[in-house]
């Protein structure tokens, strides 16, 4: 196998591992939404065991984020846990739209992309100011109730951990290489000239991506994730 293909393969394995961790969470969330007539914020406790189980490996945050009005007793709501300390911690943020501290999560790409496409998504890298304030990749899967979008099930991975997992293989490629997202934003590269978070404008990844992301010299898609190896 070519070294480039090995990098692509390794990214796909990491991505699939994260999405595999989310499968039981999605099952738990969708059955809760199915079984309970009027799901209230406190009922989200019931998916807590699956959420906490999803933490580990590269996953430092996981949970379910409800679409507006899915809960019977409040407009917004979620069950989200992080594993940045010695034991899992629950995330609390303001959910009152009228409050001074409220931040509307339905504008975040990790929410909108899965909602609008109905498919799983890897969002970022981005500064996750709602949760850990860290540079993050968020993996999301849409959850449904009666065939309708009911929010997302998601997992957070710190970009620095993703970098640790991939950097040795990128270094091994020898020449300049970067893993970027569909907007051409660098997730990790093997060059100081391509810093994390910068846009790699010369490769024009966004245009290539929206034209269907067909195999092309120097640009490879990693599985079905919006992650691209540029060499």
């Amino acid at each position, binding site marked *: 196998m070519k070294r480039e293909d090995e990098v692509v393969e390794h990214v796909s394995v990491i991505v699939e591992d994260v999405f595999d961790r989310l499968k039981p969470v999605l099952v738990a969330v969708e059955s809760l939404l199915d079984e309970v007539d009027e799901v209230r914020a406190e009922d989200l406790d019931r998916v807590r065991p699956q959420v906490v189980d999803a933490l580990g490996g590269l996953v430092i945050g996981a949970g379910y984020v409800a679409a507006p009005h899915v809960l019977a007793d409040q407009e917004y709501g979620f069950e989200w846990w992080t594993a940045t*300390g*010695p*034991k899992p*911690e*629950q995330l*609390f*943020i*303001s959910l*009152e739209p*009228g*409050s*001074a*501290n*409220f*931040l509307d999560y339905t*504008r975040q*790409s990790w929410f909108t992309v899965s909602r609008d496409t109905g498919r799983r998504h890897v969002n970022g*890298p*981005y*500064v996750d*100011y709602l949760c850990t*304030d*860290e*540079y993050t990749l968020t993996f999301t899967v849409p959850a449904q109730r009666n065939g309708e979008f009911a929010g997302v099930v998601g997992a957070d991975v710190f970009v620095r951990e993703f970098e640790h997992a991939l950097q040795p293989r990128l270094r091994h490629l020898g020449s300049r290489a970067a893993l970027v997202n569909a*907007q*051409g*934003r660098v997730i990790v590269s093997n060059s100081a000239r391509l810093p*994390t*978070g*910068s*846009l790699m404008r010369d490769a024009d990844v*966004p245009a290539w991506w929206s034209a269907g992301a067909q195999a092309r010299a120097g640009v490879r898609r990693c599985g079905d994730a919006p992650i691209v190896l540029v060499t």
Partner: protein
Amino acid sequence: MGQARSHVFAPLGDLGRAEAVTARLVDAISMGLLADREQLPSEAELAGQFGVATVTVREALVALRQQGLVETRRGRGGGSFVITPSDGSPASWRQSLREVSLSELRDIGDHYLAVAGAAARLAAERSSPEDVERLRLATEDLRKANTAGKGRETRARELAAARAERQFHLEVAAAAQSPRLTHQEIQLQGERGGLLWLPPSANAHEEHRAITEAIAHQDGELARKLTEEHILQAVDRLADMHLDLLEP
């Protein structure tokens, strides 16, 4: 055990959560979800409901008492009771503005200038179309906050405008792709009870629009310059108002 000592031994997971509990209760009180004179559940019950340690709840209650939003009565029939502020605001910003000093204001302004200016320059370099779209939404929020609801209470309009201001600058820092600048932005927004963006400004929406367009056109120097001017004007406004408030 003294209070400081007991904090030392607070469960690690609870550090920083007192703020979250405080914020939740401030929200509930200022929005009237908790009624004036309503008795709060006991510390132990609150701790159970929030899923935090009792010491965390106690810390939050101290903060609420300091803001005059809760009073604690001892003895039989005692407990913590909600005090809804008469003007609907927790410790009004005019009060905080009277207490601040001009030298402190200038220093907060300088720090903010360094952080937000650098964030704007980097955002122009690094924003994707998605980032620019979020900046436009945040810009629009401010216009809506300023124009909508003329019948609304002034206080509610001021809060909505201040929130839109903070959201906009938070989005710029996030668009810069910098966790550290974002973190600093959040910290600075909280300085002196979020004073900087509280006094309303007639031009703020136009200024945000211009900053957003500079970022969209990848003009980092212009984005920085416009952001610095925007902040300097906010600081000048605060200084003027501070001096007005000192008049007998």
